[in-house]
């Protein structure tokens, strides 16, 4: 079980529990965070699963992939904390991760 601390795009805070092995996107979607559109279903083709990861966790994540990096470039509100949540597989050591859902483009 991994715990995710989510700040929704409305500003509302929510704690989500996920099963290890799920992607971050799948966990958010299952928890009803419906502003995460995830149109392509996690195959790194759409950039509609954009989140901002809190600094302390950023470095523990798998590195940014080339396709992910290029897709993030399509977003006007990309920051140094931006990741596509479908590209992050949840492991036990990510439990407690803090993130904010990016606004819809």
């Amino acid at each position, binding site marked *: 079980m991994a715990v995710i601390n989510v700040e929704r795009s409305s500003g509302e805070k929510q704690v989500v529990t996920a099963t290890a092995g799920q992607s971050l996107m799948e966990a958010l979607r*299952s928890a*009803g965070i419906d502003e995460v*559109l995830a*149109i392509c*279903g996690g*195959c790194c083709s759409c950039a509609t699963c954009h989140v901002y990861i809190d600094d302390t966790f950023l470095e523990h994540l798998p590195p940014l992939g080339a396709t992910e990096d290029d*897709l993030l*470039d399509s977003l006007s509100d990309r920051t140094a904390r931006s990741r596509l949540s479908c590209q992050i597989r949840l492991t036990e050591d990510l439990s407690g991760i803090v993130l904010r859902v990016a606004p819809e483009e």
Partner: protein
Amino acid sequence: MQSRQRGNMNNVDVLVVGAGHGGAQVAIAIRQRKFDGSILVVGDEPELPYERPPLSKEYFAREKSFEQMLIRPARFWEERHVMMALNTRVTSVDPIARTVDLDDGRTIRYNSLVWAAGGRARGLSCSGHTLKGVHSVRTRSDVDRIVGELPQTERVVVIGGGYVGLETAAAFVKLGKKVTLVEMLDRVLARVAGVSLSRFFEAEHRAHGVDIRLNTSVERLEGEDRVTGVRLGDNKVVPADLVIVGIGIIPAVEPLLKAGAMGANGVLVDEYCRTSLPQVFAIGDCAMHANIFASGAQLRLESVQNATEMANVAASVIAGQPQTYRAVPWFWSNQYDLRLQTIGLSIGHDREVLRGSMATRSFSVIYLKQNKVIALDCMNTTKDYVQGRALVVGGHAIQACRLADVTVPLKKLIEEVVA
């Protein structure tokens, strides 16, 4: 508010027909817009809404479980007070009384109706089309049946060289099956891509061992009880343990057309996704619309993106915050290690510009119409896909030699025209 949302199953504010991509998203988007009326989704498949693209990709290859494909878990629909009537089919619509009839005998009254019924896989009509071992790839149950027959399957014939046919062929190859792909036209993807991309995909599939037969029609399917082969127009027989029919869909719109909605190959909608019937919307694969990215030509788009964005439009009108449909079409397809991303619509192009080299398997095809960029097919080139969007949206005229120059990012070309 709760009591309104829960409503009474026989009299609802919003009735959604079809529990697929469009149907799920319209319910999600209506609730996101804080509309608190009752919503009932009627779908004829047994499952809660799930993603269809993995059917010919990760689900087929058993890399993704069905649970991972659910658009939302069961709990979500309960929490949002979205009622689901699954395994249930809408058989007719009465637009005056504002009711629909269901195949279980019930009649339901609606205020707004959203038709998100997609399409049925088109079947063959030649002799042998009902033999065992002949399948389409449209639903989870189709794929489960196919997977169940895999142990007895060595040779597969895929009929139709569209995206679904090609992806399915690639999936069978991965499983070590011998695949023949039969296409009636002179190239694969003839309906959706330019010649150079067709040739590229044909070469890739051949390199993976797929026997591609172009300009080839199907005479009949051979076999007594179960299919044993496909007899082609040239009278040759290709032996087969399994046949996949991937020749497109027939939009599921009969009840709406019978009720008087305008349309033929699909139901006609305006930029608010409204049909010609009062308070009846149509979205997704079955919605024929004038697309601004095809110079206003009327067409249907079969993509998750289109179903999702049309759902958002219909939801915005129902929730009283109307928006029009202006979304740039995009699409993806994954085959082997190839990642294709498409932006814009290439139909009607008069020129193709190749950016990069096909030999590197990383290139883009840029489609021009009267010198303006109308679409890009990006093969393993996400950068072009991302940066090319602005070219399509802006409808910019850019010299072909500049577009072909891989040393100049597309972004730079846009900056030049805008400056």
